[in-house]
């Protein structure tokens, strides 16, 4: 399994590099932003950091998933790997672990920095208990859901279904985030979407002729 993960990481090193660069960039931006946070103008922070971060998330992680699957299909990588002592399930699992690692590389520094800075900043920002955890969980799941849509799009020749799935997810999530903010409901919807996506990806990946 480690060999397969290593292979995926080396083949998609550019996404890991991108995750490191963007993560560093967001950490650098978040330091002055949180330290000079003005609670009277929260929309500035939302527009300045939140929205670009979400757009980058959607594009990058969706692209990573799509690129992993498209390259495999195009270069017949799985067709070769399955002639070795490797099953399709293992190839897919290694791929998903690699994607998760890239998402964590992007998020972890950002979450750690934000947590430290929010506690250090003075005057104290009115945060409710568990806010960091809820936002982190929801954004991580959102990134993972985007990655899953990418996997689905990259493997399937039918581009319509995954695109419609992504649109439906966005249509549900965006109003929910605006109305209720990041919370348990968002995480539950995302988890359900991810499970459905993973089941579908596994089915198509293990049954399609290679």
């Amino acid at each position, binding site marked *: 399994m480690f*060999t397969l993960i290593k292979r995926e990481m080396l083949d998609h090193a550019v996404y890991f590099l991108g995750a490191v660069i963007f993560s560093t960039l967001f950490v650098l931006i978040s330091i002055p932003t949180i330290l000079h946070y003005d609670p009277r103008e929260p929309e500035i922070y939302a527009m300045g950091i939140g929205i670009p971060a979400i757009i980058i998330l959607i594009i990058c992680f969706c692209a990573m998933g799509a690129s992993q699957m498209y390259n495999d299909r195009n*270069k017949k990588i799985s067709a*070769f790997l*399955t*002639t*070795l002592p490797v*099953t399709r399930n293992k190839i897919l699992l290694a791929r998903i672990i690699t994607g998760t690692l890239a998402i964590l590389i992007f998020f972890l520094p950002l979450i750690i920095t934000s947590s430290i800075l929010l506690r250090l900043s003075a005057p104290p920002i009115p945060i409710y208990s568990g806010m960091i955890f809820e936002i982190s969980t929801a954004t991580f799941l959102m990134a993972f859901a985007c990655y899953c849509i990418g996997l689905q799009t990259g493997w399937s020749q039918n581009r319509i279904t995954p695109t419609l799935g992504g649109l439906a997810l966005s249509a549900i999530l965006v109003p929910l985030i605006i109305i209720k903010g990041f919370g348990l409901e968002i995480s539950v919807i995302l988890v359900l979407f991810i499970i459905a996506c993973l089941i579908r990806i596994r089915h198509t990946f293990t049954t399609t*002729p*290679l």
Partner: protein
Amino acid sequence: MSENVITIKNLVKFFDGRCVLDGINLNVPCGCIYGLLGRNGAGKTTIIRILLGLEPPTRGQTFMLDAESTELSAKIRGRIGCVSEGHNLIQNYKVGRLIQLCKDLSLQWNDEFFEHLIETFRLPMDRRVKELSMGMRAQLNLALAMAIDPELLILDDPTLGLDTVARRQFIELAIDIIQKQGRTILFSSHILSDVERIADRIGILAAGKLIVDCPLEELKERVKKLRVIFPESAPQSLYLTEIVNQKIDGRELVMTVANWNDRKQTILETFKPSSCTEIPMSLEDIFIECTRPNPKVAEC
């Protein structure tokens, strides 16, 4: 383990409504070198792909090393070496990296034998796979398949793109494997002289059916090509079962018959031919006769 390393039961495959394989039944016993022959598009590669679990069957079942092809575990896959048609290696990898990947993923790796093969084939480690010639890619694929010391070796047109010297090297390697006890090889090829040299059992596919499945010697024994000369013009009413092909030209009748036996000989003699001589047939001749459009019967 059962005595058959490969078992195919009533295999049917449709592509876009077109029947490519029509009820194939095939057993390859342990230690057998099975040559699978057929014209382009006959379904050889499809059978191999279904066996390897790369393609799902429409109906029927295939088994390798007692495991169903659709559920081959990593452990079973580790006992099977494979050289696929077109040599689907990872094209953008350098040779050295591809070898390392295969080595890391393999359950066993014969370093000494692999080094010997690499030296024999003079494969450059620092070049990308896509930069290699077709022949070099075939050699690399073959070396990778051989290095795991496989119990079952599946070769789909392995000598495609190899020059004469490399082809000879390949045959010698195959013979080397054959000499190791209990090794089984399934291979398809268009170069019938190669097949004739190493195969001990032959299967011929035509029109989606396995029309021949028997030991090579038996095939040569059973399929006869006869030149029969009659005192007057050759009879149109001569009826023998299992005539693969026949051609009448004046007094001369040239026919290829499957399962030639005394009974057929007696029937032929009732027409009082002036002479009846057997024309020696190579595997290539038999193959051509069997795969002509609408051959009558050629089952052994």
